[in-house]
């Protein structure tokens, strides 16, 4: 029994580790492709957690071999959910990647600060706002902590 607890703790720690690495990676990486990869890792962690939620250490896989005996099985519901989640994840990932391809074509850059800056400039330009007017107060335009202006120009990531 005691050894079983350790196994689940290992799995739990792995799941948390993947999640944290993934989320920190999304937050930290400058390069947009790297953000997608980090998101994939975080999703893997969440999936592991979900399967873990239905895992029993004393059970068999949820496939019946005969109707007569009723062996203890692991919970099939989280497994079905993870199946769904995995496929959803890959769909989102493919979409992210195809958007990236376009961004790369248009902006010739995958640096997140640079792309964000150019996006802001483009929105302002299509709206017909003179850029120098809004330059004095870029901080107030976002509810989130904005991208520091000094980071522009230094291309980050590993590209």
């Amino acid at each position, binding site marked *: 029994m005691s050894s079983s607890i350790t196994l689940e703790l290992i799995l739990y720690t792995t799941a948390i580790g993947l*999640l944290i690495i*993934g*989320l920190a990676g*999304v937050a930290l990486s400058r390069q*947009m492709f790297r*953000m*997608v990869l980090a*998101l994939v890792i*975080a*999703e893997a*962690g*969440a*999936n592991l*957690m*979900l399967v*873990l*939620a*239905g895992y029993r250490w004393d059970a068999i896989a949820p496939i019946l071999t005969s109707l007569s005996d009723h062996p203890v099985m692991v*919970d099939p*519901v*989280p497994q079905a*959910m993870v199946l*769904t*989640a995995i496929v*959803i994840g890959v*769909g*989102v990932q493919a*979409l*992210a990647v195809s*958007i*990236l391809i*376009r*961004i790369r074509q*248009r*902006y010739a850059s995958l640096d997140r600060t640079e*792309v*964000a800056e*150019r*996006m802001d400039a*483009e*929105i*302002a330009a*299509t*709206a*017909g*706002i003179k850029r120098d*007017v*809004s330059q004095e*107060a870029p901080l*107030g*335009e*976002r*509810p*989130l902590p904005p991208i520091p202006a000094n980071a522009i120009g230094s291309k980050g990531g590993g590209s």
Partner: protein
Amino acid sequence: MNNALVLTIALPLLGAFLLPVLMRTSTALGLWLGPLILSYGCWLLSTLWLSDTSLPISLAIGGFAPPLGINLYVDSLALLFAFAVQLLGLICWPFKLDQDTAHRQALMLLLIAAATGLALSGDLFNLYVFYELVAVATFGLVAASGTSAAYAATFRYLILSGIGSVMALLGIALLYSQTGTLNLAHLAQLAPEKLNNPLGLTAFLLMLIGIGVKAELFPVNSWAPEIYATASSKLSGFLAGLVSKLALLIILRLLILIFHQPEAVQVILVLGILGAISGELAAWRAKDLRRMLGFSSIGQLGVVFIALSLPDERGLLAVIALSLHHLIVKTGLFMLADGWGGSLQRLCSIAHTSPLGAALFVLFSLSLVGMPPLPGFWAKFTLITELASQNEPLYLIGLLVFLLATVIETSYLFRIAGSMYQKPAIDTARSAPPPKVSDFSLTAATLFGFALLAATLFIAPLGDGLQAIAAETQNIDLYINTVFPATSGGPL
């Protein structure tokens, strides 16, 4: 016959699957398919509303009884939102005809199906699936506008929403590991004994952040102004008006049915306060109409979250009233932004070229600010009295912030309205023709304006109706008994 209600989700999906092929064989048929399906959905929902079926009802999909299978839970609130989805989908339908029409309309149908699912579903993971479908369809529709800024904004939204969905999935995993069920009613039964602990709170916070992405909750709302500035106005109206409310509806259900901890409420209150103040301040500084609308929508949803943190039925009434009011007004404003999007300076003395649009803008602004006869006043009035009657200091801060937000809102909305009615100055710098709202959008906006005025006239019966809806939503026992009839001690 109630089983047919599932058609409001299934038919748009079917239409979406078939649309690209259908469009290739017969363009006319393809073009009519979407509006036809949506009209049928509206008809289906309104007949249910008008018939003497006693709400709420619970439909088991696949004939599997609820805790095992997935059920649709249809009460007045869910029905109202489902109807709003189908109707607004019809109004915001992308009629634009080009080579991408089939795909764009298919994505719109998917978005509508998923949004209807969000309103009706009574299963946590099913809600997650529909939530993701809403997200993916939104990405596609925003990116379909094809500008570089739209791609960049979509990508940033996608990453944020991806983080959100990981969080929500994690919350679901924690909940499931603790209770072994996903059905909301079943969870509501088990919650008092199994989820009233730090683990339950953690699960709630994770799901709050996850679902809060779409509800424009404070720390995860940076996508909103960017998306609204780059997507088409109709889509922005749909997203800001409706999808955010549907995410809010999920949070509301979770809060009422499952998570009763005071900490959960406090977190929502604090995030709401922060969202309200930051959104309104940013809107005040915004220089173009669409981003201003995006920021102000963040601010107003912050106010709704403040209302959500109120404990009793009147608080819930305020939430529902504010949400519906915001739904009508914000969608109407985005309809106007269809032609007026862009710098606020372009709107200078626009009232002389398009008086109807300017009048509508003023009407919406007045209601948004809370001018007495208009519905916005009653919604805000309920909130103020309710906030003032609480004696916790945090609620007082909420009240102050709410008043401050209203003042800021007034100042920027009427700065614009004032400039609209300015005498046309001899402005040589602006040689471009004045922006014009397309006829269709103007008609739609007029409809929203009429809806607002009608609500003003019938405010008393409307208030009673909303009160009844709030009471019904608040009633946990009713929810549980509807999903699990006959069984008293629990479904399993």
